[in-house]
């Protein structure tokens, strides 16, 4: 299972490496390049923007927070702190779509 909370301290980044969200939940999603996402189990659908789409794909691969943030830092121009904050927030939104 995934953790509901991820401390934002550097310490946690180096000591905890659980995935941000259960990859199985994300894997069942039909994700199109347009950012349209459909969950065949719940029947819900939602839209994500391009960075949201990228995070979703990283999560599908089962990436944990530090590796997801690193991958995004390599791809995008932005501060690691901002990106980490945004990824955490986005994972929170996803968890809301799939309450445990």
């Amino acid at each position, binding site marked *: 299972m995934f953790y509901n909370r991820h401390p934002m301290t550097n310490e946690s980044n180096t000591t905890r490496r659980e995935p941000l969200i259960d990859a199985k939940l994300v894997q069942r999603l039909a994700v*199109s390049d*347009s*950012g*349209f996402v*459909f969950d065949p189990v719940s029947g819900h*659908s939602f*839209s994500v923007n391009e960075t949201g789409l990228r995070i979703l794909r990283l999560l599908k691969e089962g990436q944990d927070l530090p590796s997801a943030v690193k991958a995004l830092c390599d791809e995008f121009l932005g501060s690691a702190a901002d990106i980490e904050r945004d990824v955490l927030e986005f994972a929170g939104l996803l968890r809301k779509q799939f309450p445990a």
Partner: protein
Amino acid sequence: MVTVAISGMNARPDNPGPGVAVARCLREAADLDARIIGFGYDALDPGLYLTDYCDAGYLLPYPSAGDQALAERLEEIHKSDPFDVFIPCLDAELPNVLRIEQQLKKLGVRTWLPSEDQLKLRSKERLNELAAHAEIACPRTRGITQPDFFQRCDDEGWKYPLVVKGVFYDAYVAHSPADAAVAFNHIARTWGYPVLVQEHIKGEEYNLTGVGDGEGGLLGAVMMKKTGLTDKGKAWAGVAVSDQALLDAAQKLIKATRWRGPLEVEVIKSPSGTYHLVEINPRFPAWIYLSAGVGVNLPHALVNLALSRPLPAFGEPRAGTMFIRYALETIVDLGQFESIIVNGVRE
């Protein structure tokens, strides 16, 4: 071929918009080769997916976003999918459309609509003035912004039941101050202020739809008596009637306003035989398909007027022709829904 854009593609069975019915009239119009584009305000507006009636579907900004948002969106659509005529079918969008009529004209888009002044003349708050001018009885109407009106309205001669209405849509008959306050709050939440209060007239409701030629003439009036109502008071069955007194009243109104464009006149005939003007809607009604049914295809006439073409031949409306409304499901591919959601387009 002519491309006609039609809004109001919402069609929930209990309270449908007129757009799909207008599209259907045009589809069935003899000697009109029309491509039809449907405009909706929600990805679940069914008209957007009804390929029988709409060759393409697009989402528009909500009327509350203002006229320039609408102009920009229409220009964007027109660039990739040019259209020649636009028939707006919802009351709330009309003020915006009228304000951008010149911009539309520059794009080559024709309309057949009332002026802003004409629109104001028939607004629900001003109906009393217009009715007086056209010498038609009209229930007393006034706009309010506070529900405490219902506690003290007795002093001003208002008797229950009375009708509580939104400036654009919705009407409830309230039998007590408590009823009225509930209706007031519901309407204010959806359509804002003012909320209208109207004297309740006992009698039978009749509706008339037609097109004003802009010079005081009424073209092809079709009259209808609702014979079955949904619990929202909308017709699910009706019969075409022919009533000279109602026609005379409508002609007076059209003459008084020099109305240009589609309209629906709602009257109540009291037991004593007096006609009371209840509402004038500046658009086709949801039951407009009856006009095609009785051989007076009003949407077709409107398209021709907009394009300065000769009017189609009208028959004498056949009184006694009925309609019964029913619901049916259309099958929507997830990809089409995605396209509407992501791009606001169904192609």
